[in-house]
């Protein structure tokens, strides 16, 4: 058991940021803390890192009680959303910082920094200042800097939050590969469910300062414990009093046993997808239902805006009644 959080409470004034958090983060895994902004996930990460003190409860890292240890004694690698680069130092100096503080022998520092530069693909940028790097490169530098101290755990706070969509995706894949190479216990905070589903071994969904559910990405997607988890892990829509994912709805132009029926009132094409809105004729559930089909499906079914369609959940679709 690499990180053990027991009964942690934390409030800022009247606002309860964390309420009775109990969490076990297994060693060597990549764990995501997922939730909406202001839900407490970053606070929990900062409590684990020692950057924030919990009001009560304890934090254990690799079997050592770290509750009262200051941040610099916890041997935790921390990566910030906005890089927190040391702007006046070169990339090499940035990465070497933790080792120089620890007064390691020069030769050892040089070798270690060289190895890390290689790992994060920044060897050719070693003598540059952070301001001469792109956002993605800066974040890789920050990661190497955190890894240099050979931390017991690596904590990343919205590590890709400040990057554009394409770089985010690249870095996400890269982080996954890096983790498979380095195997350090890693916890990262994100509000992007796709990021969590794609990268993490375990996802911890946090909302309103409480843990909603802990599980593998498949668990959470297929067996959401609550309406919140279902709706947070992807788009949902309401079909006849049930919450369902828009792509789990079967749509037909021909009359059939259906949960709802009505005309297609909106038609938006996004790349290969077609997002439809169907306004049911049912007076009890008049709110529009979102349906997503691929373009090929839409063509095959002969769908057009304004068509009368019949909707029902696909066989095996995950629904939560509400």
């Amino acid at each position, binding site marked *: 058991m690499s990180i053990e959080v027991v009964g942690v409470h934390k409030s800022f004034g009247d606002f309860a940021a964390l309420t009775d958090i109990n969490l076990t983060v297994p060693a060597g895994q990549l764990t995501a803390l997922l939730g909406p902004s202001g839900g407490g996930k970053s606070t929990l990460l900062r409590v684990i890192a020692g950057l924030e003190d919990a009001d009560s409860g304890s934090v254990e890292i690799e079997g050592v009680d770290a509750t009262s240890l200051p941040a610099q004694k916890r041997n935790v690698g*921390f990566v910030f959303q906005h890089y927190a680069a040391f702007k006046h130092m070169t990339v090499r100096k940035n990465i070497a910082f933790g080792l120089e503080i620890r007064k390691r022998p020069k030769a050892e520092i040089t070798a270690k920094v060289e190895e890390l530069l290689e790992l994060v693909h920044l060897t050719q940028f070693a003598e540059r200042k952070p301001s001469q790097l792109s956002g993605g490169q800066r974040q890789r530098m920050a990661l190497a800097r955190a890894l240099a101290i050979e931390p017991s755990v690596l904590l990343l706070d919205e590590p890709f939050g400040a990057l554009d969509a394409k770089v985010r995706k690249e870095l996400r894949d890269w982080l996954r590969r890096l983790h498979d190479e380095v195997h350090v216990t890693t916890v990262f905070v994100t509000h992007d469910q796709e990021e969590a589903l794609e990268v993490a071994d375990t996802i911890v969904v946090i909302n309103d300062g409480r843990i909603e559910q802990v599980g593998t990405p498949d668990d959470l997607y297929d067996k959401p414990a609550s309406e919140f988890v279902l709706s947070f892990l992807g788009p949902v829509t309401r079909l006849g009093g049930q919450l369902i994912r828009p792509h789990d709805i079967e749509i037909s132009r021909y009359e059939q046993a259906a949960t709802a029926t009505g005309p297609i009132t909106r038609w938006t094409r996004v790349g290969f997808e077609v997002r439809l809105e169907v306004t049911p004729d049912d007076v009890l559930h008049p709110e529009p239902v979102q349906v997503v089909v691929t373009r090929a499906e839409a063509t095959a079914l002969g769908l057009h805006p304004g068509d009368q369609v019949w909707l029902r959940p696909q066989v095996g679709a995950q629904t939560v009644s509400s």
Partner: protein
Amino acid sequence: MASRTRQRTGPAGLTARLVVVVYLFLLVAWPVSVVVQRAFDPVGQPGGVGALWERLSAPDAVYAFYLTLTVAFWAVVVNTIFGVGISLLLVRQRFRGRRALSVLVDLPMSVSPVVVGLALVLTYSTGLGWFGSILSETGVRIIGSTPGLIMATAFVSLPLVIREVVPVLEEVGTDAEVAARSLGANARQTFWRITLPTIKWAVVYGVVLSAARAIGEYGAVRIVSRGAEFNGETATLLIQNEYQAFDEAAAYAAAFVLVMAALLALVVVTVVRPQEGSES
């Protein structure tokens, strides 16, 4: 493309420019240039570089400049240490009375230096001072000696370092410092390796401004100093005394040096500013 975004100059713009140029000329350029001209070519006395140098190397002038430099040096040292400390306190700590402290720090800028001098005399002189008796018993003289000059000068130039450093500290935030702590640095290491290099140029800028202010200080120094030849007479006091003693040539010569010091400070500041921009 840049020229297209620039405003076209109409008659109003031209008038405004003319007013500014005339104003600056009448108020600054002309009087200062007269001082420089008189320094080299005083009325009724030998002129030229040689004569100027002779006046500046007169023993009383040498003493005055040496005293001014000593006072300015220590005032700047004190202000730099306390200025950086107070800035860190104001920006990085949250405590009761922080806003009051922030206002208090600006006080020396708004209070007349003469009042500062009087206040120091009332507090620290052996005769009048609050703890004057202790001072006279221990034989420590503050008013009428160099420590008093340093205190007065440090007082009036206190805000200059702080007002440069505070905005920079606020802008850079705490991310890098927190990162350093998480990498194992203690408070001292974080300050020397992260915070200080970050605010370096702001400190340099503040130091230059403080030094310029300290060298030119007159009002507060006038009150706390005995102001006699070889006895607490700083460069500014020397100018005043010589001027009143009808030795205008010596007064202009010393004034010329102060003008040069100010210009040097301006040049340094102009050189420093862009570098600060490229760092961030």
